[in-house]
């Protein structure tokens, strides 16, 4: 799958490859109301990674349903909507709108965006608040409910177990790690928001560790992500316990990377005697 916020609505990649080879596309983070996002500059390149502070720029779920959904609904892959909010009420109302869209088989509940002042990550950093938002959305959302976890917590396994208990059908992780970049020449922060979310290969060891830890305590499938640049990285996440993976930042560097990873996974299985890609899941020999 492609990670939310790194693949637009899929349309942006049509010139580069046929997205029907993907398991799914997570569309840009969607909120109840239109959001302008944060001021420029929103991005800083860092060693083996990047910081972003886009701040969930999107036109709101009603615009999505009326204008974007009709364009993308017949794409030959699973189009999942990443749902974000500032209050539980926001999450519920947004999920209700998406629930009515026939061709959207699931949502990814984003309780982990570090770039929105009034919420987002706040829900994903404590068990009670994570449980409350997942339970509330579970009541109104009838299809697949994936919950995306924040790595900015002390005990990720505890949060994973809590959202599973609250009704999540799957768990995706990790969202970006809260970070910061400083310009020594200007003596100013690089980002307009001072802090932002770190992604790319720099976060991969953290992401792998968290996937591993959550896989030890939950039964629902885990969707692993965090710095996956190639098929070997994807294999590593699956061995650590992920049933599927998302690719994010790598899409910016090679827009065809996801198609290459799909091919590379098959090739790995052939070369290493696995009949099915799913046989890799949790096959780590500790």
């Amino acid at each position, binding site marked *: 799958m492609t990670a939310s*916020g*790194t*693949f*637009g609505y899929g349309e*942006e*990649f049509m*010139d*580069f490859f046929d997205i029907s080879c993907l398991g799914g596309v997570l569309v*840009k983070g969607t909120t109840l109301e239109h959001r*302008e*996002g944060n*001021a*420029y*500059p*929103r*991005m800083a*390149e*860092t*060693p*083996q*990674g*990047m910081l*972003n502070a*886009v701040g969930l*720029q999107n036109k709101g779920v009603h615009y999505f349903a009326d204008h974007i959904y009709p364009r993308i609904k017949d794409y030959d892959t699973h189009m999942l909507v990443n749902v974000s909010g500032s209050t539980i009420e926001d999450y519920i109302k947004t999920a209700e709108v998406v629930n009515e869209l026939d061709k959207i088989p699931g949502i990814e509940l984003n309780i982990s965006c570090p770039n929105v002042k009034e919420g987002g990550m706040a829900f994903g950093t404590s068990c009670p608040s994570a449980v409350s938002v997942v339970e509330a959305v579970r009541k109104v959302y009838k299809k697949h409910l994936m919950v995306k976890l924040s790595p900015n917590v002390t005990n990720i396994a505890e949060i994973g177990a809590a959202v599973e208990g609250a009704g999540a059908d799957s768990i995706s992780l990790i969202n970006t790690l809260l970070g910061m970049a400083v310009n020594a020449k200007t003596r100013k922060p690089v980002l307009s928001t001072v802090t932002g979310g770190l992604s*790319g*290969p720099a976060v991969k060891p953290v992401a792998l560790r968290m996937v591993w830890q959550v896989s030890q305590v939950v039964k629902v499938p885990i969707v692993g992500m965090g710095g996956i640049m190639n098929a070997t990285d994807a294999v590593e996440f699956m061995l650590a316990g992920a049933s599927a993976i998302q690719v994010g*930042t790598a*899409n*910016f*560097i*090679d*827009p*065809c990377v996801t198609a290459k990873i799909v091919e590379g996974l098959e090739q790995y299985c052939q070369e290493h005697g696995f009949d099915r890609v799913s046989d890799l899941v949790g096959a780590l020999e500790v």
Partner: protein
Amino acid sequence: MKKYIDDFKVIKNERLNYEYVILTLQHPGKLPAMMPGQFVEVRVDNGPNTFLRRPISIHDIDEANNTMKLLVQEIGEGTRLMGQLKEGDNCNLVYPLGNSFSLPEKPRVLLVGGGCGIAPLLFMGRHLKANGIEPQFLLGARTEEGLIALEAFRALGQVHTTTEDGSVGTKGYVIHHPVMRTHEPEIDMIYTCGPEAMMKVVAKYARNHNITCEVSLENHMACGFGACLCCVADTIDGHKCTCTDGPVFDSTYLKW
């Protein structure tokens, strides 16, 4: 306009001075159509600190030979690595990206460039000339050494210059040049690219004299094709991606 990802071959690396090079890149087949103002995203693979592609303006196109020129100013690690590319090296591009300059409704046009911002103006000058319009250029730099590729511009039209130290042309910034001091300018359209402070004063001059002005922004980008939403410009319609809604904007559309 369809986007591509291809390996080009470096066939020439011409060093202009201590900070500028012009790379000539050979397309593996038939170079697709591109418009002046568009840019490419160059992959730089050599170090941990050059993780993202670098957005670079298309400086010139040679359709007959399927080559493209990029003017590169070495301002950081990524552009320095690009400056070290040698004949025969591969250079992976995502291209062509962004919108383009529009053709003017009236024929009297001035193209104003500062520093590396002159890059897209050569391609635009050639495009104007091909459409029967004689462009005038106003190019500014800190010193004489920073005024680059002048001969290529002179082949297309009249070239005015300014330098901050007065070593050549009018002393000062582009806005100090006589063509921009007159109260009744004989200009119908301005195209400008360069430092934002320069473009802002050029845009202000254009607005004060009822001249249409298109500016090409150089906002930092990650993807270059509308997926990451990192490069936004503040416009009267809210945040717009410099990579897909720009890089060329009518100056009155920006909240400047």
